[in-house]
Structure formats: C-alpha cells, structure tokens
C-alpha cells in the first residue's frame, strides 16, 4: 500500500459520504433520517464512545512516574530550575499541560533536519521549522472559533460571546465577491484560516517524503472529511444560501430533544450535517482521540518528584532476587582470602579436604 492508494481510498470514502445525503435527501426526501436520526445516532456514538475510550484508558494504571524532563530539575537553591518543563509539583504540571494543550509547546520545539554531504564536507543542521506548529495551531483554534460561532444556530437568544466572536472574526468586513453588497456576508477569518491550515496539513503529507511514508488512510480520511465539512459550510454561507431560519428551527429542535424537520432547507445543509455526523461518530474510534489522550499522557502530566515523593505501583508484585547470603555462599572463600569482610566464616572442614587432595 502506498500514498496513492491511501489518498484514493480516503477520497473515495469521503465522496461517497457526500453522495449519500445528496441522494437521500435530494432524491428520496429522507429528511427525518438525515436531519434527526443520523445526527442523534452520531452524537450518541460520539459521547458514549469518548467516555468508553477514556474510561478504558483510565482503567490501565500508571505504575511508574515517567515524565519527560525538558529542563533543569529542582535541586539546590542556587541552581535555577525549570519549574514548567521539569515540574516539581502539581502547579508546574498544570502550567505545562496548559501550554501543551492550548499552545502545543512540544510541537513548537520542532526543527527540520538539513543533511548535506557534498564537497567532501558533511554538514548536519537542525533548522527552524514552525510551519507544522503554526498550521496545527491555526487549524485547531479556528475550528474551535467556528464551532463556537455555530451556537447562534443552536441557541435563542444568541449568547453574547457569540456576537463578540462574530464581530472579531469578521472584522475584515471583506466581501467574498469583488464587490460588496448583494446580500453576500463578510468573510470570517476563521473560515479562511481553517481551510488554509487543513489544505497545508494535507499537502505537507504529500510533500514531505517522511510524512508521506508514514501516512495512513486514517490520516487522509479525517483531513478530507474536515475539508468537506468546511467547504460545504463555506458554500452554504457565501454561495448556496439556505434558509437560515429553518436551519435554526431544526438545530434548536435537535438540542431541545423535540426535533422538527422544516421544509425548504437546501440539500447542501444536509450534506454538511451528515459529514459532521460522520466526523463525530468516527471520532472515538480514531486518532482524533488525541484530544482526550493528551491529558492522560504520563510523560507530560506527572511531576518529576520521584526522588522525594513516593509513587506506588498498584500491581507491584514480589520478585525473585539473588540475596547477599547466596552471593556470599558462592564467593566466601575468595572474599576471606583477599580480606573482604563476610557475614559467615567458613565452617572448619579444612582437615578432610587435605585427604581428598590425594
């Protein structure tokens, strides 16, 4: 299997997923299925799945405290320690985790190998490479902003933070068409950022040979899915306008557990909703679980305090060791000869030994 098969498979899978609601709603008018049943099933899978996974991880204990230390440990008052990258206690761990989760601190360390072996000289460099970090940050944060902005569809009245986000996100006031007006809304920065970041994350998988080699369909599939989600959203907002009032009626109905399926919402909405449903249903079974896993990672969420706070292994069991007595029994004679102290002297059996020598 190579990257072509991986991409074709993932692309085919996502295309099929787009076709399903298109045909389902467009040709067979299965609005209840795609507007109510599928979203509910997906949400249930999402929440139950995540809980099951996290509990499953949690069931495995952490027998040893194994943080990756990334700075000077706490030792003497006159040596400056690094309380965040080598945390001594919970406070440091919390800061370390916050920086990790919100700012991707470890990824920020990233460098790129530059290996040149020409003109008789070997040159190995580790160069500046923040693009992955930047794209990851742009992607995750814009995704979050877009998600929060969507609350204006789920809630009535619209919460004030959504208004605030809306105006911040849309401050460019730029029309999508060369001219403003004609009812085309202003462009959100988060939309542009997310699409750009996802596109970059896809192209780097193709472009960087090592990343291309390690990529699986499980890497392309969620990227394509998210790209499709974003594109259908953008289409709906800027080009193929749908009846927002009806959409909101459906969304609020879903969240209030009294679903209604209004008439006249365009198929594009059902495609958008279906892709979202697939994404969240796929979530608990996929690498996307990294969002929960990062909190549990023992190399990051533990303090480096093993030498002064005891850590207990819940499944610890006694093991067989080679005791000092066994050791001395084997070497006693030679230990005595060379003048090493021993626990037991050799019992006086010297005399018969003389006879044996004959």
């Amino acid at each position: 299997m190579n990257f072509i098969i991986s991409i074709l498979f993932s692309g085919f899978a996502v295309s099929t997923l787009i076709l399903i609601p298109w045909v389902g709603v467009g040709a067979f008018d299965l609005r209840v299925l795609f507007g109510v049943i599928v979203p509910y099933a997906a949400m249930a899978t999402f929440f139950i799945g995540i809980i099951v996974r996290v509990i499953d991880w949690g069931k495995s204990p952490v027998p040893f405290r194994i943080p990756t230390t990334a700075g000077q440990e706490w030792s003497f008052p006159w040596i400056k320690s690094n309380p965040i990258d080598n945390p001594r206690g919970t406070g440091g761990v919390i800061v370390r985790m916050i920086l990790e989760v919100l700012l991707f601190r470890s990824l920020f360390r990233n460098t790129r190998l530059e290996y040149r072996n020409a003109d008789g000289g070997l040159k190995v460099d580790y160069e500046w490479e923040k693009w992955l970090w930047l794209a990851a940050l742009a992607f995750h944060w814009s995704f979050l902003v877009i998600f929060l902005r969507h609350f204006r569809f789920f809630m009535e009245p619209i919460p004030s933070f959504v208004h605030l986000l809306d105006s911040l996100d849309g401050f460019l006031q730029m029309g999508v068409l060369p001219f403003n007006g004609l009812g085309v809304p202003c462009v959100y920065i988060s939309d542009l950022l997310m699409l750009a970041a996802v596109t970059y994350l896809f192209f780097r998988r193709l472009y960087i040979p090592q990343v291309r080699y390690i990529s699986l369909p499980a890497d392309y599939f969620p990227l394509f899915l998210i790209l499709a989600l974003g594109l259908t959203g953008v289409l709906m907002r800027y080009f193929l306008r749908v009846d927002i009032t009806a959409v909101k009626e459906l969304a609020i109905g879903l969240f209030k557990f009294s679903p209604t399926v209004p008439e006249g919402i365009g198929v594009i909405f059902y495609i958008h909703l279906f892709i979202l449903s697939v994404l969240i249903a796929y979530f608990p079974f996929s690498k996307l679980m990294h969002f929960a896993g990062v909190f549990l990672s023992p190399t990051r969420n533990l303090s480096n305090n093993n030498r002064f706070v005891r850590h207990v292994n819940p499944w610890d069991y006694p093991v067989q060791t080679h005791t000092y007595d066994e050791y001395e029994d084997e070497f006693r004679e030679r230990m005595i000869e060379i003048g090493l102290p021993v626990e037991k002297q050799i019992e006086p059996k010297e005399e018969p030994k003389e006879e044996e020598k004959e």
Partner: protein
Amino acid sequence: MADTPKPDELAKIDHTPPVFRGWMDTQPEIRPGIACYGSKSKDLKYVDMPNPRDWSPFDDDWKLPENWEETIHEGFKDRLGRFRSFKLFMDICVRCGACADKCHFFIGSGDPKNMPVMRAELLRSIYRKKFTVGGKLLGRLAGARELTEDALKELWYYLYQCTECRRCSLFCPYGIDMAEITIMGRELTNLVGLNIDWIAAPVANCYRTGNHLGIQPHAYKDMLDFFTDEIEDITGLRMEQDLNRKGAEILFITPSGDVFADPGTFTCMGYMMLFHYLKSLGLDITWSTYASEGGNFGYFTSHEMAKRLNAKMYAEAKRLGVKWILGGECGHMWRVLNQYMDTFNGPADFLEEPVSPITGTRFENAKTTKMTHIIEFTADLIKNNKLKLDPSRNDNLKVTFHDSCNPARGMGILEEPRYVIKNVCNNFYEMPPSTIREQTFCCGSGAGLNAGENMELRMRGGLPRANAVKFVHEKHDVNMLACICAIDRAVLPNLMEYWVPEVDVTGVHEMVANALVFEGEKKRTTDLRGEPLPGMEDEEDV
C-alpha cells in the same frame, strides 16, 4: 563481525523513503553490523527467562517456541492493561511526523523504519489487528497487519535499534515516548526468548556477581587496589578504599564499567581521590562488591528484571547499615534510580534523608529514595568551598559536555555537571543548542546496544553527536568530550576515533581529581592518565 564502512562512505545517507512502495510491503534484511547477536541459552537459564536456547538473528530459524503468537498476544494484552502509557501510545499518534527526523538512528541511517513514529507503527499495526475493531475489519487500510514471523523479526530488528533516549518524546505534541514503546516491545520479545547477547549476558552476570561485567568480589578489590597503586604513583599518597564495611555512613554505588576499562577507570580513580580528600573532613563511605553495579541492563529486558537487579542497592544499604546512598556518574542508572527505584523496591525507610557530612547540605530532592548523584554532591562541595582546586592542571583540555540522554530527559540534571566542569577546568565550550541539554543526542550505543558486532549501527547512531563535537572541535579546538555516563565513557571513544579522532573522552570526576590539590601530595607532573600536566612536559617522570 561485519566490516564497518569508512566514515565518508557511511555518511552518504539518503533520508528519502521509497515513494511508491509502502512500509508494509518491505521486509528488512537483518544485517550484520546493524543487528546484535542473539542471547545465549545459559544466560537466560540463569535468570529463568523463557525459551532459553542458542540462536542467531542471521539464521532463518529463530527457534521460537511452539505457541509464540499466543504468548505475544497474551503478553500484549496484559501490558495494555497494566500500563496506561502503552495503551495510550498505541492509540493517540496522529503521525504528524514531528519525531521523524529527531532520532539519531534515522539521521545516521536514513532507514525510514528508524523514524520513531515508524518504529512505533511496527508495533501499533499488530495492536490494531488484534485489539481494535477498525483494524480487524479493514486490515491494511486501517494500518493493521497480522503478527507473522516476518513481522516479529522486523519488529525485533528495529526494537534493538532504539536506545530509549527519549529525544522523540520531547518533540511529540502528546508526549508519546518511543522509549516506553521499546521497553514494552522488548518485554514482548523476551517472552519468547529474543533478547540480545549483549543485554542477556550482563543481566545474568549482574544477578550472580553483582555487576554486569561479572567481576567477582576478590577481583573487584584487586582492581581498586590497582587504582590505589596508580594514584600513589601520581600523587605520592595512598588512598585506600573501604569495601563491604558495615556501619559506614554512606554506601557508594557506581557502574562496573568504571572499574573495568579506560577511560572509565580514570573516573573511578577520580571518585577514590575525592573520597580520600574528604576523609579528614568527615566522610565515612564504603563501596560494595555485592551492589557493585549502578547500571541496570535488566531495564533493557523487562520491568521485572530491572526490579530484580535494582533490589541489591537497598538490600545492601540495609545490610551494611548505612544512612544513605551515593551514586556514581551513569546515564540509564539514574533514570532507573529517579523514576523507578523507590516504586520498585522502596520504601527505603531504614535509610535517612541524605545530608552531606562535609557541608551539612540536605539533599531534599532525594528525600524518599535516599540516593544522591555524585555530581550533586560534588557541586555542593565546590559551592561551599570545600575543595582546593587548581583548574590550570586541566589547561591542556578544551572541554565540551555531552548530556547523557537519561540524566537529561529522565531526570533533568543539566546545570550541576556544567558547574563542576567550569570549576575544575578553564576552557569549556558548549555544542550547538539543538544538540545539548534536553535536546541532547544519544551516544548511539545506549540501552544495551554497546556491543561490538553492531559497530556500523553505533557509528551511524552516534553521527549527530559526533557531528556536533566536530563542530566545536573545528571552531574552538575542543579536544575533550566530558560526560557523566559509564556507557558514554565506554562507547564515545570508539565514536570519536571514527568521526573526530582528535577528541578524547572523560568523566567529570576525572577532571575533578586532576584539579584537586591534596595536602602533602608530591609535585604532580602527570594527570591520571599518566600524561604530562600542562607546563610539565619536560619534567622527569619519577
């Protein structure tokens, strides 16, 4: 033993993996020079490890036990249930590739399966097939594959090309630690008797004689006596050491490599001289022949084996009735002591919180393990002005410092060695920031891979480290690579000879002892290596 290619040959490395051929479709050739010899029957038998037999990885038949698949499957399941780290690291990798070019083995070999993510995927693919729904249903499309004999061989080949240095885990956004995965993977290989000789033999030795090299108690004493004579030649003072002495205040444990081969032996002489120096200031210390190993090759075998070997330290401290333990310069030893020992074999409630008898400093950071690193101990002595030092005796040295992986990324002991070095020598230069401290590069021979038959692998793995040394050698004329690790002292000389022959290797306490000015010593003309001190080149050596 395979011939190691010449440096300029070996440096021709292509880091581009095949374009169209996926990794599941390539089976590596198990190559001499890269792979180590298989474990011997007698060594596995001695410590009751499964499937003892003589075997070779270069043969087609690895003499696996009948039910090896089931054994590994069961062992896998068991470990997923016992280690959250393992389970999590099997599940959450997104294959972003940040770790790919961080591994010294990938940099030095270009073998794509030496990318940490790829090495982990070798195991993950088996995990997916056995334990995940997606893997069972979709197979290869989900990155899953069967545990075949070929897959096992490939896995083995690459698990024993990882030195558990944790550099990848530093860059991973989720902290996925290849060292942890390698530890688990190696546990699995050990369930079916697939250890390497260079790990299994030291383990058996250590179990029996107390140290990896199999040095028996009388021989151990002989060696210290020999060093005592050497030291007397250099300083005119007789610096006898105590062994197995009950009632001492402190037990000293160092890797056995330090008493065995140059340049570790000079570090060992350094410890001896320091202890002698401090005797009149109130140091009451003993060595032990039973706990005569700081390192722990059991840690490269399984957690259980690590615990079995580590047990000697506390057992001996208890038997001798000491108050606390001082540990020598060693790398993985300190990861075990810092992150495992108390959990393995504690609580050491029969010991006391370490206090320096010379300065009165309490080593609060060793409150429960009761074990202090000698570099902390010495740094504290220097800070409190307890040592009379003449750093000019090391003026012939231009020193750089190699952070060993485990003290750096499994402990965080970065400043103390630098503080000590700067006080005992006048010329100190750092290597580039991306190659030191927490980003340090491995010597290429850790985690039991410091054998002789895999020299090509070691020279490849050590390339990034050597390249950084070469940089400071060319820029600042550096001629001495200092380290606080016995494996480093054993393997870096080979690495330097291969890549940067002008640079030698030393432990930090060798330089301390060179600089240490003793009351009543004769005029020193040579350093511990018997080479003339700066300005003494013309002096007659008596």
